[in-house]
């Protein structure tokens, strides 16, 4: 029992009795005292002469110890109170005998009784003294304690653990018996006495003592309910009192809300009503007893609000069992709507629910509608608590035993019913009521319930009170459940609710107008001290499940709104993964109209203010930033990053703008070369995409996440922020590129120009940094994006250049009226494939449909020469070529499944392979760098300059890589988990980097590698094909539905992330071990065979000879950690080898 105290080293009694000025000393000497010393002759005298304050006896509480500083007796006693239980019991006895004296009373109240409260039960041996006090003492404070302890004796049913009061375990009573003046007193002896005395008192009609009467009654109710005699007695007393006080049919006092007013008699009656009703509430329910119900119904009319509350709670419980008789007995309850007591209104909601749902009352629709109306009015209650309870009731949720039918009915009610307020609601008076009357007047006209509820929830989610937030979240959860139930039964009529929902959607939209306001209201996101939000991710996840199973646009929008609020309020507690999945679910479920909203919700996260915006002004505050709340700052950054990524991946989907399905009339694109016009055109054509672009640009350029010049001057201090910012900016650039590739003109051009500008700035600062830091300092140089942007620009450059070439060729052909010959077509086709491959490295595009050479290349030219070639465009030309050469690789234009399916995503044809090779040789070294960390195949292996650059952190691992056959290329990497693993661990990686502080300064090549490794892996990590996912073969079949929904990334990102070792650099990056991975595979090491010779490029790598047998321990980032059966030439047994080199 007392482990709480014991384990802490200081007992509660120590704390209480210790000198306020002195720290509670442990008193180890005292604890060595034999426990029997107190039990034996524990008189005060025997322990005298211990002037030190060593009051504790921790080992056993039955030892008596007394802290005595001097010999002065009674006065000193008050100051230096006894601390042992036996001593306390003795004191009570002694003082009870002299209870007429003021000093004894004072001592009892000030020291003895409070200390007795520390023990977890009260010994019956003190009962006689207490009873004596009860009879003789007149001091109210003493008496209050007496009632308290008497109640505890009554409630203590013998088994110590079950008493309500915790505390120090009470010593064994037997051991006390010999020191107890009264002798061995058992509970059985005293309880009847106590009960008699208390019941006599509670039945007395003496007005002067009615306060004592209340207390006695209260004490009586704590007696155990197991004995029927006792119960009978109690019922008798309670009903006796009610008989006298309840029957007055007089009107309730006008001044029920104001305490004053009313004559003495009625006040006393009110008090008695209160006491008896409270007592009745504590007694077991007696549903069959008409008197019980009768008294309870009378209680509704009582003047004491607490009494009314208890009456209602009794009635609502009876109503759950016997609604008919309750409904018949009850009168009007309208007035309770305005009762001051919150809980009373809560019970009213429950009561209304039970009656309005009762089957037995089907014959009485008037009664049912009366109670439903009352329930609906409670939705307007000023108290959130009442309102939420009412919503639960409307939804059909009371406990958790409701049937699906009930819940479904609840959902239908909520979505269909309309609240009509009765004329002139009996709004009583001012004060507390003014608010509610205001509300009701505002809501006078009939309102659909769903609208009321949604408004209420919305405002509740703005609350700063965590209990309210929590409760509101629960309400939403229940709504989801009810709705699911309705769907399950097919009872849900979409048409009927659409009206209500569109209203609701409006209000939500209007709410979206001021996201910034909300964001700034909590500029410093709530810190990590948020136990309250622990369950939010879980809540959202379960909500999402409901939405997913029964997805409709409306629910999705609502959910998004909630997710947004959570995201903005407590970024630390929400999982970026959960949020992303949520966004996606909503995006898919939200339908055409909801898409915009969904995207908005995402971008709002981008608008979140950076943590502690004011902190960048000085050094001192800088320290505070990182120290105060790095966790939540990190969480926020993650969220922003996730949002950026999500935008990039899904903006095109949301906007329904795809290059390959472009609505742009062919030929107009390149005419709009003026940037301003283009933006205008862009926004007029597709505002959703345009706004997404703007947001991303802001993020990429500087936006609210720019750290500023200080970042350069004190890079070390700012590593923390710098990393986060660079990450987000890089993510933004990535997203932009994806959008650019997937979008038609003019968006592509718009992004191209922007990236170009960004690259110029970035490159410049890179140059200026070059002398200092090798140009590798990503974190501290301008936008720091130069090296990352250039590959992306390269892609776009290539595309535009090829388009130009094509245009030129077409013109030439047109001019010379030449047919396209096979050679030319082949060249064109190769260019097409090459670009396609190139583009595919960045992001997924449906290969069969995507035309990197331009939508329908420059039809404006063809218009002139249509006679010659019927609408020659790249698509046509390529198709001609394909047809001639029977290239089926990506020729599945007629078959959408194939066209968008996995087969298209792979490098299949020899041509493609060759082209890829030639393309690679022209790639900017920077580009290679950007993906090298994630790629260890021939993509960069052929590229000598790139290797030079990346060697620093890849240790030349891939230089020996031979050209891998296509088959191998695809098949040797069956594992998709690798990407997932990255996704799961990438964020941890960042944490680790920051935590161990080794990512210092960001000026070493290692750190650059680290950043890029992480980033590229992050983007690959969503199991989404891009430049940064190492292998196109891991796309998975999930990509097949590209046009139906946004690219689905594996749900495994939701899996719990495991702790993860930090890939500090490129080299380490390959040798880090994932716990998870190891767990997974170390159990059963696979055996494999070396397919090729491999020369180790680093210390942790292992050379292989073709045909060598190895044991695969685990896979990490495209590498196997393998063990050989015997040492190789270099004497090494185990090490890393590229996955491709080993057949598993």
């Amino acid at each position: 029992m007392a482990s709480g105290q014991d384990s802490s080293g200081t007992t509660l009694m120590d704390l209480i009795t210790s000198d306020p000025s002195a720290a509670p000393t442990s008193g180890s000497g005292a604890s060595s005292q034999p426990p029997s010393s107190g039990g034996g002759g524990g008189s005060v005298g025997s322990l005298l002469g211990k002037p030190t304050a060593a009051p504790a006896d921790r080992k056993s509480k039955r030892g008596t110890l007394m802290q005595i500083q001097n010999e002065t007796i009674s006065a000193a006693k008050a100051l230096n109170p006894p601390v042992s239980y036996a001593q306390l019991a003795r004191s009570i006895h002694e003082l009870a005998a002299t209870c007429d004296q003021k000093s004894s009373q004072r001592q009892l109240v000030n020291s003895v009784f409070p200390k007795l409260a520390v023990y977890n039960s009260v010994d019956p041996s003190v009962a006689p003294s207490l009873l004596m006090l009860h009879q003789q003492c007149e001091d109210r404070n003493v008496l209050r304690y007496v009632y308290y302890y008497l109640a505890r004796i009554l409630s203590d049913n013998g088994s110590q653990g079950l008493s309500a009061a915790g505390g120090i375990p009470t010593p064994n009573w037997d051991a006390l018996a010999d020191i107890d003046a009264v002798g061995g007193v058992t509970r059985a002896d005293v309880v009847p006495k106590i009960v008699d005395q208390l019941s006599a008192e509670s039945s007395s009609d003496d007005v002067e003592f009615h306060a004592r009467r209340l207390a006695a009654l209260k004490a009586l109710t704590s007696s155990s309910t197991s004995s029927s005699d006792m119960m009978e007695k109690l019922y008798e007393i309670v009903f006796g009192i009610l008989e006298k006080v309840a029957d007055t049919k007089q009107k309730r006092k006008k001044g029920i809300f104001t305490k004053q007013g009313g004559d003495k008699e009625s006040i006393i009656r009110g008090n008695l009503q209160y006491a008896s009703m409270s007592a009745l509430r504590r007694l077991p329910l007696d549903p069959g007893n008409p008197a019980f119900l009768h008294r309870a119904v009378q209680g509704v009319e009582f003047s004491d609000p607490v009494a009314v509350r208890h009456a209602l709670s009794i009635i609502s419980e009876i109503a759950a069992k016997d609604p008919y008789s309750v409904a018949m007995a009850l009168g009007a309850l309208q007035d309770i709507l305005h009762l001051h007591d919150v809980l009373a209104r809560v019970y009213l909601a429950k009561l209304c629910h039970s009656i309005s749902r009762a089957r037995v009352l089907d014959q009485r629709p008037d009664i049912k509608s009366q109670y439903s109306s009352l329930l609906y009015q409670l939705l307007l209650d000023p108290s959130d608590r009442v309102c939420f309870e009412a919503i639960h009731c409307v939804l059909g949720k009371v406990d958790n035993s409701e049937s699906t039918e009930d819940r479904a009915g609840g959902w239908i009610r909520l979505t269909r019913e309309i609240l009509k307020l009765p004329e002139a609601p009996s709004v009583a008076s001012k004060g507390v009521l003014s608010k509610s009357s205001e509300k009701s007047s505002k809501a006078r006209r009939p309102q659909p319930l769903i609208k009321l509820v949604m408004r209420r929830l919305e405002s509740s989610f703005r609350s700063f009170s965590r209990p309210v937030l929590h409760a509101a979240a629960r309400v939403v959860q229940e709504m989801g459940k009810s709705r699911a139930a309705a769907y399950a039964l097919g009872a849900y009529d979409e048409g009927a609710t659409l009206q209500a929902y569109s209203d609701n959607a409006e209000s939500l939209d209007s709410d979206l107008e001021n996201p910034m306001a909300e964001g700034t209201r909590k500029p410093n996101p709530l810190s990590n001290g948020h136990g309250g939000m622990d369950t939010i991710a879980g809540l959202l996840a379960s909500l999402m499940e409901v939405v997913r199973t029964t997805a409709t646009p409306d629910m999705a929008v609502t959910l998004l709104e909630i997710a947004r609020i959570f995201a903005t309020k407590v970024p630390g507690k929400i999982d970026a993964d959960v949020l992303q999945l949520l966004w996606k679910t909503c995006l898919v479920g939200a339908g055409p109209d909801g898409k915009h909203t969904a995207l908005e919700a995402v971008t709002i996260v981008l608008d979140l203010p950076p943590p502690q915006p004011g902190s960048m002004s000085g050094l001192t505050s800088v320290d505070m930033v990182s120290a105060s709340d790095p966790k939540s700052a990190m969480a926020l950054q993650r969220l922003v990053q996730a949002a950026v990524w999500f935008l990039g991946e899904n903006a095109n989907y949301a906007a329904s703008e795809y290059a390959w399905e472009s609505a742009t009339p062919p030929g107009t694109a390149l005419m709009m070369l003026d940037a301003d016009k283009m933006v205008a055109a862009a926004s007029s054509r597709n505002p959703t995409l345009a706004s997404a672009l703007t947001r991303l640009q802001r993020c990429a350029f500087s936006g609210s996440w720019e750290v500023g010049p200080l970042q350069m001057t004190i890079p070390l201090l700012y590593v923390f922020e710098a990393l986060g910012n660079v990450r987000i900016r890089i993510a933004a650039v990535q997203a932009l590129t994806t959008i650019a590739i997937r979008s038609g003109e003019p968006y592509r051009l718009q992004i191209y120009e922007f990236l170009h500008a960004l690259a110029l700035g970035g490159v410049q600062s890179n140059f200026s940094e070059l002398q200092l830091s090798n140009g590798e300092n990503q974190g501290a140089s301008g936008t720091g994006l130069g090296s990352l942007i250039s590959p992306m620009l390269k892609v776009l450059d290539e595309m535009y250049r090829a388009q130009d070439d094509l245009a030129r060729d077409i013109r030439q052909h047109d001019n010379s009226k030449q047919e396209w010959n096979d050679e030319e077509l082949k060249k064109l086709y190769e260019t097409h494939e090459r670009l396609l491959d190139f583009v595919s490295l960045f992001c997924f595009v449906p290969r069969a449909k995507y035309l990197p050479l331009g939508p329908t290349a420059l039809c404006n030219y063809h218009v002139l020469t249509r006679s010659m070639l019927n609408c020659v465009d790249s698509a046509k030309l390529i198709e001609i070529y394909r047809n001639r050469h029977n290239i089926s690789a990506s020729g599945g234009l007629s078959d959408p499944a194939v066209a968008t399916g996995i087969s298209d995503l792979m490098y299949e044809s020899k041509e493609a392979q060759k082209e890829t090779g030639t393309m690679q040789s022209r790639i900017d070294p920077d580009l290679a760098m950007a993906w090298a960390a994630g790629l260890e195949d021939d993509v960069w292996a052929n590229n000598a300059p790139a290797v030079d650059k990346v060697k620093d952190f890849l240790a030349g691992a891939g230089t020996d890589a031979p050209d891998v056959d296509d088959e191998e290329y695809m098949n040797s990497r069956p594992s998709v988990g690798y990407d997932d693993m990255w996704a799961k661990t990438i964020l941890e990686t960042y944490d680790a980097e920051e935590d161990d502080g080794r990512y210092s300064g960001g000026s070493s090549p290692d750190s650059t590698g680290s950043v890029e490794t992480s980033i590229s892996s992050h983007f690959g990590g969503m199991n989404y094909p891009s430049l940064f996912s190492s292998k196109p073969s891991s796309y998975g079949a999930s990509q097949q539905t590209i046009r139906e929904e946004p690219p689905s990334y594996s749900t495994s990102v939701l899996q719990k992330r495991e702790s993860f070792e930090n890939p500090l650099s490129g080299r380490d990056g390959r040798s880090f071990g994932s716990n998870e991975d190891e767990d997974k595979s170390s159990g059963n090491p696979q055996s494999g065979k070396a397919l090729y010779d491999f020369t180790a490029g680093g210390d942790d790598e292992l050379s292989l000879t073709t045909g060598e047998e190895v044991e695969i321990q685990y896979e990490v980032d495209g590498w196997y950690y393998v063990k050989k059966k015997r040492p190789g030439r270099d004497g090494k047994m185990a090490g890393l080898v590229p996955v491709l080199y080993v057949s598993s």
Partner: protein
Amino acid sequence: MTILAVLFANSDGNILIERFHGVPAEERLHWRSFLVKLGSENLKGSKNEELHVASHKSVSIVYTLIGDVCLYIVGKDEYDELASVKDVCAKPPTERLFLDKYGRICLCLDEIVWKGLLENTEKDRVRRLIRLKPPVEP
């Protein structure tokens, strides 16, 4: 609608007062350590009287820091009125004062939570009742 436990602890995790209602003895130990752990993890640096919420299975927990005393209230299906227990309880700005007023606080609790049900939530009422005065003065 029941309050399962009310628990006061000091900042070191020592339990000062605990009241359980209908919690079996063997579960109390679990609750005790759970709550103290919850507080030590989340209450550090939180504002005075800032309410926190946690859910554990089907019950919700409202907890807060008052002065240097942590207060935990465990209840079923309730949210904000759990917090009202806090409002009515004697406000101990320090642990010392809390201990000095130990008896009073026990009585307050006795008036506020009666057999596991929330009883009186008005400050004045509680104040009167712990001095054995009727809830409404004649």
